[in-house]
């Protein structure tokens, strides 16, 4: 029961879904199973949300380090949940859109969620700089190639790239940085992307087979008898 049933479920579900692609009357099966997945995922929210609350409540009650901030999380969570699940502060009735204009939910989204998220996203501008500084060093042949490719593309994206190589005559125009940048994007870059994708395709196929056939079963508890 503990091990056998799950293995059978995985096998049956996996196999049926693979074959359903080739059988027109079953072609909507994948769509429906994706929907099933979403529904199960919502049930899982109970576990996730419960865990989040438990962690912060424990922190609070035991006065662990930074426990003050846990209050912020808990208050924010409950307030947003009240605005979301019960549509408190929503001008419309139960059928109103969750993100209706003027609802508290939408207001919080716009004045807290958006600035927080987009600033976090914008930190990337800083991190690309620090990562390039550290990583793009000519340590060996591979690193040098990485460095050169990145540098040429960076240069090609600024007026500087046009400027430094504009003297090159038309019959050698591939040596002009902007053209070279485009050529790299279109040719070796494309080749690399494709090789990676072909590998990924095969990796997924083999991985899926291992899971369906029950050879890979770590998520059910290794090879020991439970």
């Amino acid at each position, binding site marked *: 029961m503990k091990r056998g049933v799950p293995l059978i479920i995985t096998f049956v579900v996996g196999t049926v879904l693979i074959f359903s692609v080739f059988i027109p009357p079953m072609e909507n099966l994948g769509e429906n199973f994706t929907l099933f997945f979403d529904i199960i995922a919502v049930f899982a929210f109970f576990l996730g949300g419960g865990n989040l609350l438990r962690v912060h409540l424990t922190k609070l009650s035991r006065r662990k380090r930074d426990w003050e901030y846990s209050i912020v999380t808990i208050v924010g969570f409950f307030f947003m949940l009240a605005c979301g699940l019960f549509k408190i502060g929503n001008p419309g009735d139960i059928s109103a859109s969750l993100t209706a204009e003027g609802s508290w939910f939408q207001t919080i989204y716009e004045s807290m969620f958006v600035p927080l998220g987009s600033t976090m996203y914008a930190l990337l501008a800083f991190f690309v*700089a620090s990562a390039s500084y550290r990583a793009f060093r000519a340590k060996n042949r591979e690193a040098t190639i990485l460095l050169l490719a990145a540098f040429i593309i960076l240069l090609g994206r*600024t007026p500087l790239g046009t400027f430094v190589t504009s003297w090159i005559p038309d019959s050698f125009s591939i040596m002009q940085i902007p053209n070279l940048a485009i050529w790299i*994007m279109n040719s070796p870059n494309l080749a690399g992307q494709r090789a990676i994708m072909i590998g990924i395709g095969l990796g997924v196929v083999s991985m899926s087979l291992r899971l369906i056939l029950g050879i890979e079963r770590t998520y059910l508890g290794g090879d020991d008898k439970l």
Partner: protein
Amino acid sequence: MNAFTPPLALALVDIGRVISLVLIAGGLLWLLIRAIKLKEVERRVIFLFIFISVAAPILFPTVFKEKATPIVKAVFDKIESLPPGSKVLLSYDFDPAMAPEVQPMADAFSRHCLVKGHKIVYMCLFATGQGQFTRTMENVIRPEFPEKIDGVDYVNIGYKAGNEGVLNVIISDFKKMFPTDVNGVPYDSVEVFKGIRSCKDLDLIISIGGGRPGIKEWVLFVGDPGDVPIATGVAAVVAPQLYPYYPKQLLGLLGGIKGAAEYESELVIHYPRFKDSPTPALLMMGPQTLAHIVIMAFIIIGNVLFIQGRRKEGKQ
């Protein structure tokens, strides 16, 4: 910055510009010297440089001279070389999401065509393209060309469903697909359409967009079969896929905000009257260029450090 900015503010902007550039250049130089002495740069210093190089050009609008690359220059020269009164079609094949990158191009093309006295036919393959045309109306035509008359100097025929099907029809007959313009004026009464029967009678077609339907469809369904010159302005992500069409099937191409900036700067060089016109792409390029340069400088500093380090190791 508009025309009414007081002189003091302008002076402040100039001072700010100089100070920030000196700060960045001096700082980088200092870091380079430190790198030769084998001192690593702390990441927070890098962060500071990035912040300044992005914030300063926003605060003190810094416009870098963009020299148009041949592929952009080709479009500019084509519009420039057409005699006044030539018929140019601008197709707005984009939606609001793509607008930040390509709206500046659409505006710049309109500006250029109108100042040269070309007649413009506006249309769109995206339903939402009509709304974007309104932006051009507000940004360019009303404030800068109040004398141009709808129907005589330009006409908007709007959107028709059918994607490449639409192109398939207008390659041979405009009127069949667009019996009237958006205001309901019959085709034959529109001054601009005098002498235009199909796309083949146009002197230039420019598609602005980045999705589907877009420039690829224009090339395959109109440019190639009709032998009409076609140019385009597209979002940066799709630009690399279009280069194979240049220069045979596409006479030129503007890729992303950089392409737009090059066009804007070319326009300002040739037409001083646009000196005070908004140049959104050029303004956007300020922070971009500076940040790119700073990042490249840090790559160089990193390599100097590395080489110095290896040299020292070799000595020991």
